[in-house]
């Protein structure tokens, strides 16, 4: 029997104020998947992510997360879903006045009844999971950008979420740090079974980690391709997807 998707999106329109950026988006994200939302700059990838995480309201359509329809959910239901979701922002979004340990401990102090000792243990473990064992007392300004992102990931993982969203995780990282972060995403997905949703346009990352993907096409204002990126590269459904996945090579040229 086919498992229910962890996220189900139905005829979703997204945008800001009254301006619609993408129309009629429908897709499913299976549990334990690594799902990539890809597309060119300014096509609405981050807007879709912000809509999925509830930061901005959908213009129309429905989003089901773990079977709960978000627009009809009560505040308690939404809070419960947020507790089971983690988000890693482009910059890491760590609180600069707090140490890494305090940053990671924040959701645990907010939502769990654990003692401070227990929280300290969990914080050390989560930092170790992202390769920052022993960095508890460092401030964000004292570590590199890549380390900030990993610390942000440790905070996103603090409550053992079932879904983790990544907004442009490779942005601003050197190729080695970017690859290390991709490896970490794969490890977390494999080890913890976490569903990973990534917004990116970095091709090496897309090919390294994606199981499924959707391609947002600015010209038609909707999803123009869906599937594994490697399969999409082999059989591109349209020129935009082929150009995107080959960094600008023309589909017609390939056909010749």
């Amino acid at each position, binding site marked *: 029997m086919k498992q229910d998707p962890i996220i189900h999106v139905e005829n979703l329109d997204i945008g800001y104020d009254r301006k619609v950026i993408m129309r009629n988006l429908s897709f499913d994200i299976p549990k334990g998947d690594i799902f990539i939302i890809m597309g060119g700059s300014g096509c609405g990838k981050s807007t879709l992510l912000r809509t999925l995480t509830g930061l901005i309201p959908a213009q129309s359509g429905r989003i089901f997360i773990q079977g709960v329809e978000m627009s009809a959910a009560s505040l308690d239901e939404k809070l419960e879903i947020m507790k089971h979701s983690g988000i890693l922002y482009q910059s890491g979004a760590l609180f600069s*006045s707090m140490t890494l340990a305090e940053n990671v401990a924040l959701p645990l102090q907010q939502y769990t009844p654990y003692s401070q000792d227990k929280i300290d*243990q969990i914080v*050390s473990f989560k930092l170790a999971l992202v390769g920052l064992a022993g960095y508890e007392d460092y401030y964000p300004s004292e570590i590199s950008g890549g380390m900030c992102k990993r610390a942000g990931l440790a905070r996103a993982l603090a409550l053992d979420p079932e879904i983790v969203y990544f907004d442009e995780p490779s942005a601003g990282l050197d190729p080695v740090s970017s690859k290390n972060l991709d490896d970490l995403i794969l490890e977390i997905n494999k080890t913890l079974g976490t569903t990973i949703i990534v917004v990116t346009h970095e091709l090496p990352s897309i090919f390294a980690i994606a199981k499924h993907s959707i391609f947002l096409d600015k010209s038609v204002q909707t999803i123009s391709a869906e599937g594994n990126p490697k399969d999409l590269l082999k059989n591109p459904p349209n020129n935009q997807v082929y150009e995107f996945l080959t960094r600008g090579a023309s589909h017609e040229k390939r056909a010749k």
Partner: protein
Amino acid sequence: MVEFKIKGNSVSILLSGVLDGTKCIDAPVQVLHHKKISLTGKDIVSWNTDFVVELFTLLKRVPKENITYSGLPEGMERLLELAFQNPYKDQKNAQEKSSFLECIGNWGICFWRSVEKGCAFIHQCLSSWGRQLTGVAVYRKKDFWMVLADCGPKAILIVSLISFMVGLILAFVGALQLKTFGAQVYVASLVTIGMTRIMGAIMTGIIMAGRTGASYAATIGTMQVNEELDALQTMGISRTDFLVLPRMNALLLSMPILILLSDIMGILGGCFVCVLFWDIPLVEYIKYTLNSFDLTNFLVGVFHGVVFGFVIAVCGCYFGVHCGRNADSVGTATTNAVVYAIVWMIIMTGLITLLCERIGI
């Protein structure tokens, strides 16, 4: 259940049964640091991440090459491998506590450095202002009009309201005392002299420090966080000319006008109390106001305003330019800008009063 077997340099940890992490591990941590650890699983019924967290806490300082796994559930082994991927970095050394004398010395050094930095900044501002007169220092006129609009017309309402209330309070309190001598009509003189000489300038200064000085510090501080100040510097554009000069000019221009407004509103506030509450005829109030109005007092008030404008602009821009590179620093810069501006305004008021006393005005 967790069993420890220590044999020479190696420790065997046998895991079995239910491993739910409720303090089921109890071993002296120091014993394990330099040993070979063998983690063996046998008949494990169930486990959870709480247990893995406890196990990690116990073994976190053991190098990963000293740990071997056998018979553990796949998920648990992967989780431990991931957690031990990098060696544990020793915690930062806690800063050594300074003695009392060292604290005083450090404070003195910091104070002297900040005095030096402050003087250098004032020197930059004054030379930039001088360069402006010779046409060397340039800035975008659009920026000047924008900041002028912000610290001029947009401040009129708040300055009017506060000054009206101050005039009103001054008249009310003054009349209460003067009534005992039957001299409440002199309230008009009290309010006029008080507002024109000093109160109008001080109230306007405090409002503008909180409103405009804070805004300068926050705007320039955020530019520092976004590396916009670095961009200006690498383009060879003087940040004093480009950012400080238009703000300073705008305040130097708007402060005297706002002080004039403040004086008028304060006198109107006094009039309101006198006419409505103390039954002083309007004509009498106007007569005493005109009699006690002195151009010298008014000009001293306006001079205060020009000095305060300079102080507010310098404090706001100084703390913005010297802001750190995180959100916290912007808050600190804004607070410092307001506090220092108010403190320096009071100091300058004292100095101007002494100066006026010396020259007999």
